[in-house]
């Protein structure tokens, strides 16, 4: 199904070869991709996943990128997409990290066992040499039976040789015992690759109609292949005895609680200065206030006024308070896009340097108590950027249970960057005591909610098993490319949700329902939370845009304690309408409704209790 759709995007032609780049995560595939092609690169989202595939032309042929994988199988979305693309390949260029040959050659040997014509790029040879690793690439070539080209892709070394080697791509040496197991199945499947995936119990390959006697035995085949890979590695790799390098020592320090937590805190402070100060206060002021509100919005408003009767429903929906072409565009491009790009930039640095899996390891203990595992740190960090975007990335979590817990935490207890700016702006003047109280209250709700869900929800969550690659200095070009691709993806995925949200709110406003809802909230906000009655407007605005909600509190005359209560309540209060839509899309309607009701309860329960404690 998915493969048919990507085919349409790519217009596969019989006279064109499909060349696919494949490799483990962070081996420099995208650097290869850009070095190999100087044409326009298109990025398509693989249907039903968060996975983007870059494609372009290489000479007369088609060049496709795939997500980083440790093997061809179906353990997650990335693997499924890579598997589908690899099954289409006429030739695969397998990028191998010379620093991690033992890990990477498993995929290489699997591709060879699949019978796919292969060229191996032995990348990062410079870094391997610096780390005292010597690789005999000629022996490696002989053992694998496919061309092996040493490369340093970031310096452009070996790229031309790879292009030249494509013509000589070969179906290498299959592991003999695996070849024996495959032999009886050859005629039952369209390709050797599918026969192998069938034997490896891949759920994507159905049993053939003809009776097959072969047992499916993934583990046995994996073991045979692993032994063969270890044999090859022993034959080609020589390591000079060296003391622990600085990178190895730093990697160790990042994992140890006593040094790892201060390093994490320092990284978060750096992120705060980059996103919270530079982007939110310099970049966004320019993009939102100067460009969008200064030039863009008046232009559109003028245009709409000329085309539609002022005051008409159409004019209101298009360019009114929550206008499709005014507020929605200004918010999405002027405010959210720079912030989201800032978050993706930071996340890409953490990922490419090898720091992210170490943060996941460090945070695993806390997250396990909340029914998640260390990997959930990724949507949580992204949630501080935009909850809508983070909810989409919960797909990378290992089970449905974890996805529900993470979505609920995001929807209820994680303030997004748009809101955080206003919150910090209001808390800071009250003094550090109130800031600590705010963070402690929201933090306690975050942890408490996770712990409760871990206890209440049936089943158990998956365990952490994560590769800790050698730390390295990330390359700026690579970081910028990742940031760009992910930000574009966010806009594509989120824009329709913001559009639908804006129309809904405009309709609620025109019909007078919005006013009715505000009136409904008035007594609750006034007598239970102890806030001025006008604050109810701010809460309802929070449904439109989280930062509108917080900003609506700005102008109200409130004592310090009241401000704290208001900010805590508005943080926990329902997610913005785009987030709600994405929650409904990603989870079931029932889960979405539960999260929505839960956020009402959390906001008013915790806010009300805090008001009592503060003596309001």
């Amino acid at each position, binding site marked *: 199904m998915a493969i048919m759709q990507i085919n349409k995007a790519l217009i596969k032609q019989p006279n064109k070869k499909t060349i696919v780049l494949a490799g483990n995560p962070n081996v420099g595939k995208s650097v290869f991709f850009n070095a190999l092609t100087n044409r326009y690169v298109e990025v398509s989202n693989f249907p039903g996943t968060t996975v983007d595939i870059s494609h372009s032309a290489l000479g007369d042929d088609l060049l496709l990128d795939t997500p980083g994988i440790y093997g061809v199988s179906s353990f997650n979305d990335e693997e499924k997409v890579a598997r589908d693309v690899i099954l289409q390949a006429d030739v695969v260029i397998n990028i191998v990290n010379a620093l*991690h040959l033992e*890990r990477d050659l498993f995929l290489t040997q699997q591709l060879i066992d699949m019978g796919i014509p292969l060229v191996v790029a032995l990348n990062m040879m410079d870094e391997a040499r610096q780390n005292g690793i010597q690789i005999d690439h000629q022996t490696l070539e002989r053992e694998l039976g496919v061309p092996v080209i040493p490369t340093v892709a970031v310096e452009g070394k070996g790229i031309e040789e790879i292009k030249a080697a494509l013509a000589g791509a070969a179906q290498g040496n299959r592991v003999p015992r695996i070849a024996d197991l495959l032999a009886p199945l050859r005629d039952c499947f369209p390709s050797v690759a599918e026969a192998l995936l069938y034997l490896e119990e891949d759920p994507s390959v159905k049993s053939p109609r003809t009776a097959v006697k072969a047992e499916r035995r993934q583990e046995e085949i994996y073991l045979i292949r692993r032994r063969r890979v270890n044999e090859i590695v022993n034959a080609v790799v020589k390591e000079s005895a060296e003391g622990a390098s600085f990178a190895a020592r730093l990697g160790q320090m990042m994992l140890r*609680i006593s040094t790892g937590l201060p390093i994490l805190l320092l990284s978060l402070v750096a992120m705060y200065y980059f996103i919270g100060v530079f982007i939110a206060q310099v970049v966004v002021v320019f993009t939102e206030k100067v460009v969008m509100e200064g030039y863009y919005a008046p232009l559109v408003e003028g245009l709409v006024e000329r085309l539609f009767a002022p005051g008409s429903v159409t004019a209101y929906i298009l360019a009114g308070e929550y206008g499709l072409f005014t507020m929605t565009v200004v918010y999405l491009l002027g405010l959210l896009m720079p912030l989201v790009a800032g978050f993706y930039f930071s996340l890409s640095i953490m990922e490419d340097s090898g720091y992210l899996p170490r943060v996941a*390891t*460090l945070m695993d203990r806390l997250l396990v108590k909340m029914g998640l595992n260390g990997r959930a740190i990724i949507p949580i960090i992204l949630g501080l950027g935009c909850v809508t975007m983070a909810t989409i990335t919960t797909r990378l979590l290992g089970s449905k249970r974890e996805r529900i817990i993470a979505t609920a935490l995001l929807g209820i207890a994680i303030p997004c960057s748009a809101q955080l700016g206003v919150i910090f702006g209001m808390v800071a003047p009250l003094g550090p005591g109130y800031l600590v109280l705010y963070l402690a209250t929201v933090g306690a709700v975050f942890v408490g909610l996770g712990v409760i869900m871990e206890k209440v929800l049936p089943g158990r969550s998956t365990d952490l098993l994560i590769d800790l690659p050698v730390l390295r200095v990330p390359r700026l070009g690579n970081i910028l490319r990742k940031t760009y691709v992910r930000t574009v993806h966010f806009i594509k995925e989120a824009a329709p949700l913001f559009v639908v949200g804006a129309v809904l709110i405009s309709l609620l406003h025109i019909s007078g329902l919005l006013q009715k809802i505000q009136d409904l909230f008035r007594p609750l906000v006034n007598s239970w939370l102890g806030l001025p009655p006008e604050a109810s407007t701010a809460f309802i605005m929070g449904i439109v845009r989280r930062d509108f909600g917080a900003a609506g509190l700005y102008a109200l005359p409130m004592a310090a304690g009241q401000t704290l209560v208001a900010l805590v309540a508005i943080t926990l209060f329902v997610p913005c309408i785009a987030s709600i839509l994405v929650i409904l899309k990603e989870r079931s309607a029932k889960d979405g409704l539960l999260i929505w009701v839960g956020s009402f309860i959390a906001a008013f329960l915790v806010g009300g209790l805090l008001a009592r404690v503060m003596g309001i």
Partner: protein
Amino acid sequence: MTLEQAKTGDRLIVKNISDPQMRVKAIRFGVMEGVEVTCTEKLPYGPVVIRRGRQELAVGRGLARRIIVEPA
């Protein structure tokens, strides 16, 4: 003993990983029955970090409890 009971610096032989999916994933990283690994770090109540050659892996506590090892 289980991997959970290992101490930092211990050299261990993997005897059994009871979870079938994790067993297969671990094979891809070169960790399987009969292989020697070193415990390089143990976070209090958190993951156990093991190394085999240049491959370093963080194993969640729950999984470490289900991996049987013996001293090398």
